[in-house]
């Protein structure tokens, strides 16, 4: 028997790893990839809850999250391509135009 709390713990670990990567990586593409990691951990959480509550709502929510994640990846990577065209870099420390 696999307990719900095991799934929640794995999901929490994955979320924390994703947050660590998002806060510390300097490459913007890697930051976006870490967001995908966090979204995946939330999806796992929702699917596990849905399974253990014997309800389908959580899984429907996972379906919508995957759709929104696809849209987010498309727009985020479009922004990265534009940034690289203008700054010739995808590192966060090189993009300081608003700093004056």
């Amino acid at each position, binding site marked *: 028997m*696999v307990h719900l709390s095991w799934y929640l713990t794995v999901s929490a670990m994955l979320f924390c790893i994703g947050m660590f990567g998002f806060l510390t990586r300097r490459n913007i593409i890697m930051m976006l990839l870490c967001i995908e990691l966090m979204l*995946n951990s939330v999806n796992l959480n929702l699917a596990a809850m849905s399974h*253990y*509550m014997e309800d389908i709502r959580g899984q429907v929510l996972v379906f919508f999250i995957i759709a929104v994640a696809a849209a987010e990846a498309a727009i985020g990577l479009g922004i990265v391509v534009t940034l690289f065209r203008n700054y010739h870099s995808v590192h966060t420390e090189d993009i300081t135009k608003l700093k004056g």
Partner: protein
Amino acid sequence: MVQLLFFYFAFVVIALGLRIVTCKNPVHSVLLMLVLFFHMAGFYLLLNAEFLAAVQIIVYAGAILVLYLFVLFLVNLKEEVRMSPFIEKGKWLGIVGALALFVTFLRGVKSFTLGPHGTYTIEKVQQLTHTKAMGEAVYTTYILPFEIAGIILLVAVVGGLALAKREKKGA
């Protein structure tokens, strides 16, 4: 058996996650992410969500990661592998922050209780098949969010095109 599979998936997912965020070469990270997505699909299979496992592989592994790979090839990464992958002084702050968040989550998990059970028992879902059960929910109760998801995808298509389009000289 199910427990063994669960521990295998959990171990691989956590190990790959750690490797992904610490890997210097982004191409390696994206390829490891592919393996991680397959193991997430395995988790969904353990949770009796076959449709979600299929969607996970088709959309994440098939579409999103290919997009990431293409953008990585467009972007110059020659000096990337020689530099530190983390921002200055950010690594330890990040570790402390992530650990603090994890401890908070664990406290939450410990005191968590499930709400009332719904009507989709495992037997009912297996009898209906998972795809049909999902479809019935998506196309009746959740029809409005479904339409909104369609609009969001349309916005993503238009936005992606508008962002990646090269501007004309002098315009």
